[in-house]
């Protein structure tokens, strides 16, 4: 096979990986602070995807333009969800939290199924089939836009947590729950804010994903699993780790598909996960806990 084929596959793998990273980012943020393992992650993303689909079908609003508004809607959804439903479970045993979010996931999937039916919905933008030719490399335009959005969102999120007072307060909660309470931080409100931010990331990811994949209610569970593989590989709770994990998984799948057989792509991404768990259990950029 020619070098051009390898180049094309590597570029496609990196772009897909960046989008995967954006998708996993919200999961990492939520777990890093609230310590809730959000098993409804993919399902929440499918809500954002359906919002994008409905807005496009009804008003022809481009998902790229709707990225911020949809993220804002998902922020409110996440905030309300944490404040109203998840906060009472924060001090309960982990299995109770687990059952709560799994139940939430089931409700979301079936509600979407009732409202939209099982058929796949698509967003056909004017650039849906565009690609850029850069020498021998052909770059998928939608994936390139989604990958760029992934980088921008990650940088913005990093800046928020690093340089804003709210961000610092949230990090304080994540570092020391009791200490945060002692210095007078409204931890529950900050948890709700964090869940909202995580949900907004999910909203941004879902909006971008709606450009590159068909939307069905059954997408959720598959994306939840993928997000877990990525954040565990990159380091649960690490934002940069989510992005690196995404790229690693995307690249591994692409190269494995080219060199071996595409039907074994997922096997290779799970092999990476197992390797990381064996050699660096906290993930590539995760912090080791005592």
């Amino acid at each position, binding site marked *: *096979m*020619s070098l051009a*084929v390898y180049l*094309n*596959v590597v570029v*496609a*793998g990196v772009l*897909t990986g960046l989008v995967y990273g954006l998708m996993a980012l919200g999961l990492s943020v939520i777990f890093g602070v609230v310590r809730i393992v959000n098993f409804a992650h993919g399902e929440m993303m499918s809500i954002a995807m359906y919002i994008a689909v409905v807005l496009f079908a009804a008003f022809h609003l481009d998902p790229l333009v709707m990225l911020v508004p949809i993220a804002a809607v998902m922020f409110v959804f996440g905030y309300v969800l944490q404040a109203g439903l998840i906060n009472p479970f924060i001090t309960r045993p982990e299995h109770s939290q687990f059952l709560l979010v799994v139940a939430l996931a089931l409700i979301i999937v079936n509600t979407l*199924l009732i409202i939209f*039916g*099982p*058929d*796949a919905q*698509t967003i*056909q933008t004017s650039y*849906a*089939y*565009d*690609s850029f*030719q850069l020498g021998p490399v*052909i770059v*998928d*335009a939608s994936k390139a836009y989604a990958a760029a959005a992934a980088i921008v969102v990650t940088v913005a999120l990093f800046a928020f947590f690093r340089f804003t007072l709210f961000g610092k307060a949230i990090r304080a909660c994540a570092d020391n729950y009791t200490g945060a309470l002692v210095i007078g931080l409204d931890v529950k409100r900050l948890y709700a804010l964090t869940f909202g931010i995580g949900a907004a990331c999910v909203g941004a990811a879902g909006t971008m994903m709606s450009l*590159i*994949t*068909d939307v069905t209610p*059954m997408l959720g569970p*598959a994306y939840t699993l993928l997000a877990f593989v990525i954040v565990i590989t990159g380091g649960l709770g690490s934002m940069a780790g989510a992005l690196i994990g995404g790229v690693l998984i995307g690249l591994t*799948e*692409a190269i494995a*598909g*080219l060199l071996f*057989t*595409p*039907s074994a*792509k*997922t096997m290779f991404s799970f092999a990476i996960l197992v390797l990381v768990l064996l050699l660096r259990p906290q993930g590539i950029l995760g912090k080791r806990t005592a």
Partner: protein
Amino acid sequence: MHRKPFANPRRITRRTFTAGVAAAAVAAPAIVRAAGGPLKVGVILPRSGFEAGIGQDCQRGVDITPPILKSLGLPELTIMNGDTESNVNTAREHAEKLVSDGAQLLIGAFDSGQTTAVAQVAEQKGIPLVINVGSDPQITEQGYKFVVRNFPTVPMLLHDEFAEQMEVFSIAGVTPKTAVFLHVNDLFGTGMAKGIHGMKPPYTIVEEISYDPGARDLSVEVTKAKAANAEIMLVVGRLNDAMLLTREMVKQRWTPNAILSWGPGWYENQYTKTLGKLSDGPISLVPWYDPNKKLTKTLQDAFAKKFPDLNMNTNHVYTFEALLIAADAYKRAGSSDPKALAAALHATHITDNVSIGPGIMFDAKGQNIGLKCGAVQNRGGKQVTVAPKEAANAKLEWPMKSYQNRT
């Protein structure tokens, strides 16, 4: 102490006897029913789960059937809906429930695994089953007395699709020398792949690429296929991957001379609706309807009236024919007695039908061996039949128009 015979105050009177008989009739097994009235037909399909789209597509075939049966002078059917939830165990449970709720005949279940489970229930309970779609050959090799199938088995499909492929090459006046072969890696895909290799095709398969049916991204697969530089692309897949592959081919600026699909996906409504002009060109080798048959026109009219935005396809046709078979057998049996119905089903001889082939008749195993596949090409968002010659209603377009030149 002496007791008079029949002195028990709870003795059976004429009134209690009548009440008892009435209660027993209500509680009796569902199978024991009087003849007459509509036949209760349990239609079990994957209406939810990962095959929900196809199950609901089959349901459209059910929705348009009643007035056509009436116009053909066939008895009325009462439809009872069952959902396999795309799961074999649930298929079994729901088939049992349909029977206990009074279904006198079952129809289903699209997926071979689920159909196998429903067939086992039908045979155990002694309730006839008409298979609408399901191609695992083993189902009709079990010696079942209550099961008939009006759909080709995998060997029949392979044999006939191969013949249709050769006819397509003959019409095109071109026999390709090289092909790239993409297929899903599930039971259906790998089974078909083995069969295609076994057929000794006239071209060399320069690259075989198998992929996961749940794949979210097929860019690598298309890059690999494009790099193979083959004349045509063979594909065995489903709707989701048909759409993903087409999109990737457009983005990667690659159009083979022909796309030959040996399975579903490429002719489905969602494919044509979603991809618009980009859906034109692929040829599907599939069990199909004969557009020149009289009943086909009736069915097409009814379908167009009820679903104006959709094209009629295999799912609708074979589900309709399953109901036609049921109503025809009920009329000839003159009773809902399961044994009489099963005997009538085996004696079916319908020549005024819709699918390609001589008609509907079953061999001793309950299989319709006269069914034929068609070569169907997407054109202008619709499907036209290009082969076999006797069922063709359009000329073949070969090679495919480049994706880059479609405005």
